[in-house]
């Protein structure tokens, strides 16, 4: 049972890390825009890279 004496602070430490990570993310603006990223998910990534011009050209001619 004495392991609990160790585990509770360890668990709280983990929770604290999670909270700190969240705070850093919030301060960096990760949660400022909660709508646009949902739309980005529907885009096909096949031509998002400008170097893929050939692929894009093939898409166009097909």
């Amino acid at each position, binding site marked *: *049972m004495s392991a*609990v*004496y160790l585990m*509770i602070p360890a*668990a*709280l430490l983990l*929770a604290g890390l*999670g*909270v700190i990570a*969240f*705070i850093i993310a*919030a*301060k960096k*603006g990760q*949660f*400022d*825009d*909660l*709508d*646009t990223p949902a*739309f*980005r998910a*529907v*885009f*096909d990534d096949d*031509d*998002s890279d*400008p170097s893929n*011009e050939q692929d*894009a*050209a093939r*898409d*166009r*001619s097909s």
Partner: protein
Amino acid sequence: MPPANSTDQPAANQTTCNHCGLPVPPGLIDPESELQFCCNGCQTVYNILHTSGLDNYYKVRDSVNPDAEPAASTGSSYEELDDPLFQSTWVTQENESTAEVELLLEGMHCAACVWLIERLPRVADGVIEARANIRRRTVCVRYNPDHIKLSAVAQSLDKLGYAAHPARGKEARELRIREDRKFLIRVALAGALAGNIMLLAIALYGGTFSGITDAWRTTFRYYSMVLGLIVLIFPGRIFFTGAIAALRTRTAHLDIPIALALFVAGVWGTVNTIQGIGEIYFDSVAVLVFLLLVGRWIQHRQQRAASDSVELMLTLTPSSATLIDESGNTKRVPIETLEAGMSVLVNPGESFPADGVITDGTTTIDNALLTGESVPIESGPSDQALAGATNLSSPVTVRVQAVGEHTRIGKLMNLVARASEQKSPVVRAADRIAGYFVVIVITLALGTFAYWAWTTNITTGIEHATALLIVTCPCALGLATPMAMSIALGRSARSGMLIKSATVLEQLARTSSPAGKMLLDKTGTLTQGATTVIDIQGNESLLPLAAAIEQSSNHPIARAIVNAADSSLPTATNITQHTAQGITGEVNNQHLTIGSISFVTKHTGAIIPDDLQPKVVRLIDRALTPIMVHASPSNSIAIIGVGDQLRDDAQSAASDLQQRGWELSVCSGDHPRIVETIANQLNIESHEGGVTPETKAQRIAESKEHRHSTSTPVVMVGDGINDAAALASADVGIAVHGGAEASLEAADVYLVHAGLSPIVKLIDLSRSTMSTIRLCMVVSIMYNTIAATLAVTGVIDALIAAILMPISSLTVVAICTRAGKNTQTSHQPPEPR
């Protein structure tokens, strides 16, 4: 090559534009090509997309929102964006080769737009990254100022169909973003701590039933105390500050019982922890703080989104004017530097930056937003031009007479500000109920404490009083109401109604008749706000010929005639314009004279045949302007009736509103006869024309005085600057699509989509939301009454209270997600009042 939007097939045999999906006028159909466009703008945009390999735009658009219309480009040069003054205020220089700017875009509304805008680096060289924000309709562009000028960035966006504007008010916005983040961190911290305290509580409750050593019990209780106190001190602090503020202003705010419960539970829990006996309450406290914060955060976010988008629309007002100095050179200057006596150049399509007198050039001026007059005015040298009016046809020079606050629009805006200040704050039902609630709960708690302290001992008294405070914690009022409101606000925003304040929903929800009084503006609200051809009498085949000649004119009536003639137009020669009267020219070997009846009859000597006379009278009766077309040598005559057409859904919306118990009235600055005709068409009995903006606001005030009871709201629906004062002084001001910025600022609701049917939808949504909120309140008050009785009599202790509390919260939260749903059916059953 197949058409790029092959999934978006037109209905049957109609040819639609490959870019925007609208029908292509027969004259523009190119039988040789697979691709069809309704105008040059669409073709240009299509070509840009195609040559940049961005055909996927159509695919994305069709897969997410097949109804969305792409925006049209304006072709502006945006050179004012390169001004060092603009640059220093709006552009952030990240390092030597990167600058960042936030631009507000018109016409961004769906995923396809986001997709296209974020591909900006492929269209414009030198742009490093573009990040769109759909909710606020902005794009954050990072670019290399050595490679591309800001004006070129804006031009590229414009070419894609999104007119760009610098987003003003950067500092205020950054401040708000920081505030939002702080709020979110509070919610997260409360959540994390509440979760951990719950884990400890499980151990403790488990120990209560199956046995636990005192050492473990003490350890867990001390851990709970530390975490619980953190919850109270950091995220829970806002309830204490709220309660103190409420006490100072002597109002019974919901924060008072919440703060009291938190305080008593916190202090008593600490005492019990140190003493090692009794309940510790920290689990209840932490969960309570977390749930209440979640509710508040959701509502806060939703309201901020609505006010953000309205505020950003306000930045669309022209911020610069073209100044002409003594030597005749023109220069773009900020509007604030204008003074009386200066000369400014106003190009067609621009709005006048100040009140003044035209010194050079003749043009037509659209005053519709300013005064409600539907017919544009011909103006020439020494005529007045008002700030905010739109110059329609040709460039003019204006000598400035009044600027800023001294202009007519400036005075109107002062009126708006005054009206907004005088607007009495609405006492919301939730706040009213909360007031009683606070008093009852605190009295009960004191009574419980006194009774038990008297009959047994003080400890029992505190135990029972604390149990009562926790069990009656106003979750339905504190959590369900904001949640239901914000869910409804979100639903309405998705269907194109931006609501600035949640009280609107409550005001519009009245179901018994009369539901309220609604004053409707005419020009631009009930009608399209633009001149179109409505009827043709006589020889209809003259229309395309007339259109061929009118093509060279920018006059709104001319444009209406050109738009009405949809087939390919013959070439016209020898065109002569007679200012403010008419136009002559030759087409297909015919000499045509077009203009007012008096002009044409005088000019050609032709007379209107007897069979046409009554038809002309009927046109005038319908409030249309008759335009006569005479052709010689064939001597044929046509009379074209032009006017401002009713919106398609005006008829059905008006009858729907009347059916829902609303008393309608048309109130317009336009000619009384036109107003009467429109009102008759809509079966609205009460109407008034020739009303000045000031009188409109006065009519609202009168209606508010003479209303049946305090709960019937007075609603103003309008679009123009002339409606702004009335919108601000009405209980609920609704600005319709396409309105002036001033009306947006004054209104409580802004309709994103054209037409009046959203108003009906808004009312149904309000009704459904309020009935959901009432249900939540009934459930929670019932629950609280039962639980409070049990707590007062001492039947349940704090443990059971702690279990019952979240169950009641869950129940009401589950109910309130219904808010604003089923708006189609909600208007039939009358609700008990």
